[in-house]
């Protein structure tokens, strides 16, 4: 039985329509109940989808929230250019928290392994506090990882931004409880019930534009920890790491030090969908080194305040 095959029938269309209506409902609940929401936006496919849904939820009015990007300084140029272009096109307000600023003034120290992904937590929490954000939208999906499968759609964080899986509120029917005390905030995940296949099918249906690196292109890459990494300010290639010129694409887009490319000829959305459906690896398993640090890497980072 081929089970990852989503039937191209009315059934699949209905499923996407239901997911879209649910996400729009979630956006509007937050707009109605919170004072200062913000959308986490990195320019990656999940946050681009998040923004697309927000625009639909409030049309013909503008999106009533700003965007926040925690920039590790290790991002792909194509993605930063895409980010700025999207902000400009929709007349949005973008707040950027540069991890480099935290390193420069000593609030954070560079890690020995050079990866900056875990360093995002403090700039994120500091910026939430500084702007008094009370609801923070993220593009997290429950199909991504075991700890994320436990996440509520409305996830209360304490004043330290921490997630306590044992103290989550029950989430009943579609009645979301956004009450929080001063200093606390709520993380909101409108894409909770989407799978990677849903995301790509919806991107195809809605013609959502993405950064070019999601599609096959030639790139000079080197092998590290079983992944194809690209050259960049994160330090590589090191001695003995051979650079190859390959046709690759990215399944996820994050910090360049830990996000790997996959060899792929998928140059269009339809090619990508075919490839995703046939893949025997999850997107994180294939290309995210940060999830491999321990059996509970994601849970531990979420407890610290990461998404």
């Amino acid at each position, binding site marked *: 039985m081929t089970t990852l095959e989503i*039937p191209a029938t009315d059934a699949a269309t209905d499923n996407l329509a239901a997911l879209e209506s649910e996400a729009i409902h979630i956006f509007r609940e937050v707009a109605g109940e919170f004072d200062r929401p913000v959308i986490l936006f990195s320019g990656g496919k999940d946050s681009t989808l998040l923004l697309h849904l927000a625009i*639909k939820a409030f049309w013909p009015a503008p999106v009533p929230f700003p965007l926040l990007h925690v920039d590790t300084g290790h991002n792909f140029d194509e993605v930063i250019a895409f980010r700025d272009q999207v902000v400009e096109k929709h007349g949005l307000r973008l707040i950027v928290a540069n991890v480099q600023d935290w390193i420069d003034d000593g609030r954070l120290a560079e890690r020995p392994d050079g990866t900056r992904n875990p360093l995002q937590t403090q700039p994120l929490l500091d910026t939430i506090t500084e702007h008094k954000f009370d609801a923070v939208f993220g593009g997290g999906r429950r199909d991504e990882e075991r700890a994320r499968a436990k996440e509520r759609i409305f996830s209360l964080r304490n004043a330290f931004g921490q997630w306590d899986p044992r103290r989550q509120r*029950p989430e009943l*029917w579609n009645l979301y409880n956004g009450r929080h005390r001063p200093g606390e905030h709520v993380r909101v995940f409108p894409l909770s*019930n989407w799978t990677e296949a849903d995301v790509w099918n919806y991107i195809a249906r809605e013609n959502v534009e993405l950064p070019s690196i999601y599609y096959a292109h030639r790139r000079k890459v080197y092998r590290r920890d079983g992944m194809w990494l690209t050259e960049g300010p994160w330090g590589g290639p090191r001695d003995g790491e051979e650079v190859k010129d390959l046709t690759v694409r990215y399944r996820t887009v994050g910090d360049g030090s830990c996000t790997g490319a996959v060899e792929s000829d998928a140059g269009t959305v339809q090619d990508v969908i075919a490839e995703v459906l046939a893949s025997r*690896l*999850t997107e994180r398993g294939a290309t995210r080194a940060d999830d491999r640090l321990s059996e509970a890497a994601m849970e531990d980072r979420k407890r610290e305040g990461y998404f």
Partner: protein
Amino acid sequence: MSSLLRLATAGSVDDGKSTLVGRLLYDTKSVLADQLDAVTRASVDRGLSTPDLSLLVDGLRSEREQGITIDVAYRYFATPKRSFVLADTPGHVQYTRNTVTGASTSQLAILLVDARKGVIEQTRRHAAVLALLGVPRLVLAVNKIDLVDYDEETFAVIAKEFTDHATSLGYAPGSVLSIPVSALVGDNVVDRSDRTPWYEGPTLLDHLENVPAAPDPHDAAFRFPVQYVIRPRTPEYPDYRGYAGQVAAGTVRRGDQVVVLPAGLRTTVERIDTADGVLDEAAAGVSVTLLLADDFDISRGDVISAAADAPVPTDELAATVAWLSEKPLKAGARVLVKHGTRTVQAFVEELSSRFDEQKLSTVDAPGSLELNEIGQVRIRTAEPLPVDDYAVNRRTGSFLVIDAGDGATLAAGLVGAPLPVLRADRDVVSPGP
């Protein structure tokens, strides 16, 4: 047939729920190679010779340490016939609130029992909770059938006892199915087992693929809680005033007569807007923006309702609550009630009765309701709410009870006359041999 089935699992600790869910994912090939590698590695670390499929779903550190499921987890799998959203809920007594969470949106629930133990108190309690929350269909997975030598008689006794119990809770016999399975070995989960030749019913997956999904209440009266008022005030849309929300029940069409509650203002639906264009009609579950013929002052919390069949707003709720907090409920408690998009102050006037899931009977005038207890209450609200009976509509008949101080969700509330399962005057059917 609906493309999506929402389901929940329930059962006692160690009945093998996580293993069953892991088996469903594994045998439908919904587990990808890296996930399986991770589980295989973790199993070897624990000294096991075969992959422990429960590790696929027990995602939290403390769950893996203790080998139990603590919190509800959502799983996604699909076959060519259907997509599934599965709420895997813990069986531990102190986590019954998660069973309520999983069941509130489910169209079907799979209850597990251990074939060696049969129907136990926790099974009865879970079935009662599922009945209370109106989960339309039940499956009893009689697990570990391999450990009773695939004995037909053992299965038949358990199946009969459970069906009798479910029937006494109000389930029609046709909405309950028992299946002999071994989650560990894989009998009758996805693949039919030749070790149970006496079993003629479907495998678990066959049943899940073919069971009718509960119909959305499309033929119910139209209900639309206003979530947000869209007023662009842009040069292009200077006078636009739209009421954004999700249709909670029924269907709305252009030109329909509606009434805005609680104020009771009557008007007509002039347009149904979405970012993708104008619709002629919108049914339950669809998020839209309504434009009305008259320029009334309508805001978040109001309910736009079919004029011909509108609820009468009330500030006296007779309701059932499933108490989900460690802090017990006592008469006189001041709380918040969230119904639809409206949150109001409220006061619990009376605890009328408490349900005893084991005896399937009610205890009158209890002094308090403790964590995981279910009871009848009378609540007075500061403002009238346009509620429906939960038995008629899960969406417009449900509410949250919220702690006004720390914002915690205290209870799941179900409006209306007690469901048959909780009625004191009902005939109590003996729950089996």
